[in-house]
């Protein structure tokens, strides 16, 4: 029986669907298309919150294709690639568009045990991403990504009683240096190089919700922390190695068709409650998933 499938949106799009405790069975494949829209009209320079009259509303659209494969009932593999466009509604700056980062993960259901009346699980999720095009990172806030190569490890605990569950996760993302188009730049001092050291990032996630065969609903709270970096000064441009922190509240809804086996719809969104050197984004996404068995049923 197919429960669900899950896909990682890019870190840039801030969605967290690779952070759930759901698995697809061995030999199953889930193909997915996900559209994500994100926009903001206020942002934080350091901790100073302001509007952006020379940008208006900054928006991004991401069109992602992805696949998950059930290597076993306990190990799922996934790969995904988004195409991203950005736009500013005011001012003169031109938006960007390109393929963003190819991401992949291996999700391992390491522990599955009945505890009390419910089921406890622990997942380890190893993921990585590399840029899929030579897009420009140093064009914030309109660059489509930060162009670092990332490797991340997430631990996820989930406890479910009947159809209700709570979950918590911690992820640490190690980011490579990036190369920018300039050969000098100022952070809090001058650097005469085209390489930029990208601080690593960690995040905590807590979520709770309801899961049934046909319908899932989940509320999430995520706290993203950049382990280093520097603040945007008043009226200065943002920079890829800024200390970008945010606290996001979100919801995830999932509907599984009972009459069309394998077809699922997902919708969700999140909102930045508090941030530092980021836009106060509202993000909405919707996805269509089709899950099928690659081996004939016996």
């Amino acid at each position, binding site marked *: 029986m197919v429960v669900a499938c899950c896909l990682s949106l890019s870190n840039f799009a801030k969605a967290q669907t690779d952070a759930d405790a759901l698995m697809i069975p061995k030999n199953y494949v889930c193909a997915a298309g996900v559209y994500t829209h994100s926009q903001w009209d206020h942002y934080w320079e350091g901790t100073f919150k302001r509007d952006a009259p020379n940008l208006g509303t900054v928006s991004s659209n991401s069109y992602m294709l992805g696949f998950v494969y059930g290597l076993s009932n306990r*190990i799922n593999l996934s790969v995904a690639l988004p195409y991203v466009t950005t736009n500013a509604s005011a*001012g003169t700056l*031109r938006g960007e568009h390109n393929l963003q980062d190819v991401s992949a993960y291996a999700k391992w259901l390491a522990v599955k045990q009945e505890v009390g009346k419910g089921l406890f699980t622990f997942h380890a999720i*190893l993921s990585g991403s590399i840029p899929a095009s030579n897009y*420009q990172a140093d064009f914030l806030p309109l660059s489509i990504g930060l162009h670092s190569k990332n490797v991340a490890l997430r631990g996820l605990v989930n406890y479910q009683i009947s159809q209700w569950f709570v979950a918590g996760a911690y992820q640490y993302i190690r980011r490579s240096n990036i190369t920018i188009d300039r050969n000098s730049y100022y952070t809090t001092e001058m650097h005469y190089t085209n390489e930029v050291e990208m601080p690593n990032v960690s995040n905590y996630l807590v979520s709770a919700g309801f899961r049934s065969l046909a319908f899932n609903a989940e509320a999430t709270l995520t706290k993203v922390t950049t382990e280093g970096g520097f603040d945007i*000064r008043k009226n200065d*441009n943002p920079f890829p190695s800024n200390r970008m922190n945010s606290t996001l509240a979100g919801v995830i809804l999932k509907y599984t068709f009972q009459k069309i086996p394998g077809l699922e719809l997902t919708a969700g969104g999140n909102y930045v409650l508090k941030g530092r050197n980021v836009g106060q984004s509202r993000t909405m996404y919707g996805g269509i998933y089709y899950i099928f068995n690659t081996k004939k049923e016996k």
Partner: protein
Amino acid sequence: MKRSLHYILPSLFLGVAVFGSSCKKDITDRTSLYPALSPTNIDLTADTWKPVLIKDFSTLTVVAPDAVTSPAYLADINEIKASQRNLTADQKASIKYWSAGAVLRWNEILRQLVAKHNVAPYQNPDGTYPAPNSVNPFNYPEFPFSNPPYAARAYAYVSAMQYDALIAAWHFKNVYNRTAPYKNDPAVQALVPVSALPSYPSEDAVVAGATVEIMKLLFPTELEYINQKAQEEKLYRIMAGANTRGEITAGESLGKQVAALFAARARTDRAGKAIGDATVWAKLQTTAYDKGHYWQSLETPKRPPMLPLFSKVIPFLFDTLTVVALRPAPPYINGSPEFIKEAQEVTAMSNNHSRDHEEQVAFWADGIGTYTPPGHWNAIAADEFVKQNYSEVRWARNFALLNMAEMDAAIVCWDTKYFYFNERPSQADPIIKTLTGVPNFPAYTSGHSNFSAAAATVLTYLLPDRGSKFTDLAQAAAMSRLYGAIHFRSDCEVGLITGAKVGQYAVTRGKADGAGN
């Protein structure tokens, strides 16, 4: 299941290992690789070179040094020996850093301060903008806002002043002809390349003393940082066995005397009034060349134009009549066939998403939070000069030629911009989106083009063996503004021509200043 675990578990461990170690994040800053200064020619006769402001060395005072047998000198030598006994890693790093050269390092320090202060003020709640005020420099917005004209002038004053200060230092070095500590006492180690140059007064202290003094005017909020750098440098000379404290003190005093000449000029060069006022800003709309299409700020809220009266600043290389004489012919009128053709080209550039264009635009953008185009050309020059093994005084002379040209190019360019007061492409046609920020001043002619052609002309004169390297770079810098869709082609092409003319004045000066090439 079990079999797949054989593959997955090792890869998970591999992932953890990657976290733990490997992935080196260390980055090498190319300025940290500069070698210690070891001039091929110490330019001992630099006291015969033509200074910028100094009229007569007799107006400057450097007291005669103590005899090398005097107790005061011996005490100074003992200070060196004591400092050399237990050099810490930080002190060794300081010696390595400063030994690349005083003029070079202070040029880098200035570039950093320009980048730090090159951020336009944030608007007031009522939509007006506050202005930096040199009387209360710490009030927001801090003084200065080191935009390109301000920066060009700062680089010029510091470089020209260091040049004059070093010529004066060479004069007194020859007058007193004292050999260096490491030559006078075999127990003093030379931790920098040895030099036959007389060491009284200290050339490093002359540069530091002069620079600290002029920076009180140029970057008054940074004095604590600048003083700390000067202290480091003076201590470095003692630790390196290259100067005694007496030589440092004499050098610092001479530097301050020369700085006073430049500070007096800076106070009266009209830069302080360059910002204009509401009356000046309003009048520009009536004097604009294309009356129906005068320049307007593309920022929200609309920001007053940047330093409209910088055109009135007194140049270093020529008089104010020459500024007007160098002003190019008018730009194309909106609606003319030439204008329409150029606007179409900018639109095509705006729609061109080639990565090469983006890269060229970003490389040369030198916008807010950077050391500005003149700073970029200082960085280019520094990377080249390092290869030449110049003496300190020649470093200063060459930077002075470069930066006087940059400042005067700013003056001529700003005169052109505000005389014609011509619109930007995105104002003429809002459909034109840009690959970089639109600077808040008129389009004709491009500042980047003026700065770059002036710099390339000077650098090509100084380093003829580089062939067309600098003019090629200037061409790339100019075209980056067209590719970025913030300038019309004629803004760039005419700017290049005018900039080259300004640069030629510096070349003429260089040919006649007695330094040879």
